[in-house]
């Protein structure tokens, strides 16, 4: 795990999403890009994503974090990650 100030959260999460979810590969990820609509990231994908956030960014995901609000769009996800890291 890198020290917090050394990490570009946006870049790390973007890389992970593009790699894990083919439907997001090679596309620009904007704050408004939906992540859950149309099954892009399904319930199991969320599971993998949270495991990644815990491992790579040291974020402890609480039970109440498993909420669509935190994952609805790329912007929401980044905001959630930054909130948990501060």
């Amino acid at each position, binding site marked *: 795990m890198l020290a917090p100030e050394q990490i570009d959260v946006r870049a790390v999460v973007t890389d992970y999403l*593009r*790699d*894990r*979810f*083919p*439907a*997001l*590969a*090679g*596309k620009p990820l904007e704050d408004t890009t939906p992540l*859950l609509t*149309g*099954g*892009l990231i*399904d*319930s*199991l994908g*969320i*599971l993998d994503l949270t495991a990644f956030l815990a491992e790579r960014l040291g974020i402890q995901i609480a*039970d109440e974090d*498993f*909420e*669509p609000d935190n*994952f609805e769009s790329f912007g929401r996800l980044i905001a959630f990650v930054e909130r948990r890291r501060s």
Partner: protein
Amino acid sequence: MPAPVLTHDLLGDSGGDGRVALIHDARHIAYAELRALVRRYASALHAAGLKRGDRVAILLPKSIEECAAIFAVSRAGGVFVPVNPLLRPAQVRHIVEDCEARILLTDSSLGESHGAAVVDLPGLTVLDTDTLQAPCGHDLPASEGIGEDLAAILYTSGSTGRPKGVMLSHRNLVAGTRIVRSYLHINSADRILSVLPLSFDYGLNQLLTAVEQRAALVLLNFRFGDEIVRAIRDHECTGLAGVPTVWSILTRAAPLLPKTPLPSLRYITNSGGAVPSATTARLRELLSSTRIFLMYGLTEAFRSTYLPPEEVDRRPTSIGKAIPECEVFAVTADGQRAAPGEPGILVHRGPTVSLGYWKRPEDTARVLRPNPLIPPSCGGDTVCYSGDLVTQDEDGFFYFVGRDDAMIKSSGYRISPTEVEEVLMATGRFRQIAVIGLPDAIIGQRVHAVAVGRSETIDVREALSAASEKLAAFMLPRDIELVAELPVTPNGKIDYKALVAERVGHAGC
């Protein structure tokens, strides 16, 4: 009340008028209101020119409107074709075009995203449920159908090509409803949670059984395990039907479940693939007062077997025995009944055997065949060959062994490797590609592609991104593995079995 013959007879004209029929988020609708909505839609379909036997594709999110549309098409004499809204526009077009739909019933949101893909199909009328209304005073004639009429076409994939439409008669659907309701003991006190798509015969069954019994159906589009737990708790649900993925999510990614007692939950059912024994054991711990029904079925015969809950601890990997009114047996390659322990193809006979594939007589002939044990001249019927290899133990319980073809089953969905391969080849980046299913503890099989690239510098991500425009997310390979060449069989075909074996061997999954 006479026994139901047609699908909309399950809803009937009366009974349970004030009882809640459907619940969706904050909305709920009583049986009398549901009947009024069905009549309104049916009148509008008739006014739009729908004739007996015409196909109506239903592209709607899981909603009160989608449920009403299914009964309305039946009431208007049509054939309903439910389409999964997760499919990409080109996939929706394939279904609408293939079944020669006269009407596409959708809403404004899906109409906007998917409407352009079907707009040029000749003879197709697109109707929006948001504004669906018959002209004032329009008279809906009495229903003239009989039980043998085609009621529904459900699209599903095989081992090759694009999805095929399985034709189900009203008699099939009414029998399936009666049979499943009887062994699950569904009654008017039940409140069933519906999380599966209604385009899937298994998902459709929760709607049909609930309505037949004037029970309540709670509709849920879930993305998080806890949403399921909350829905069961808040609506005091008594039944839940799921596929293996649902159980993985509930046991691994629903933090609320261990601390939320769910005393209302009388039963859960699994179909669409085997549940790993460890998951079943965990479910038994978490839901100690809930009965678990492990079942097996294929759309071509609607539902075939179930394991009585009292056998689950003793035979956690069994798919059980034939459902009521049906007979199931395993047949060896030489057409004999398999001995205990000997693998054979599961064969199903009974009132839920479908009418075959829409406009695909050759595919139908492979699946619907004469009874191998009784000649037609001695009363032998038409039976369904599942294509699933099973064994039977000494006590007559069946166990799933594998497929006899390359069909992939992932998260409860049947996926045709060739459909995925065609889309990936169309990106122009590959010389050859093979799509296989690799074992996965959570989703059953993981879609995986092995390819020979056109050049050394293929961007796999770009290829997947392009393919995602044409394929639903659940069909996209998790990865494309580049290799120098694909293994071939002695007669020159891609050796799918070897591709899987090579990876299962050293990947250790």
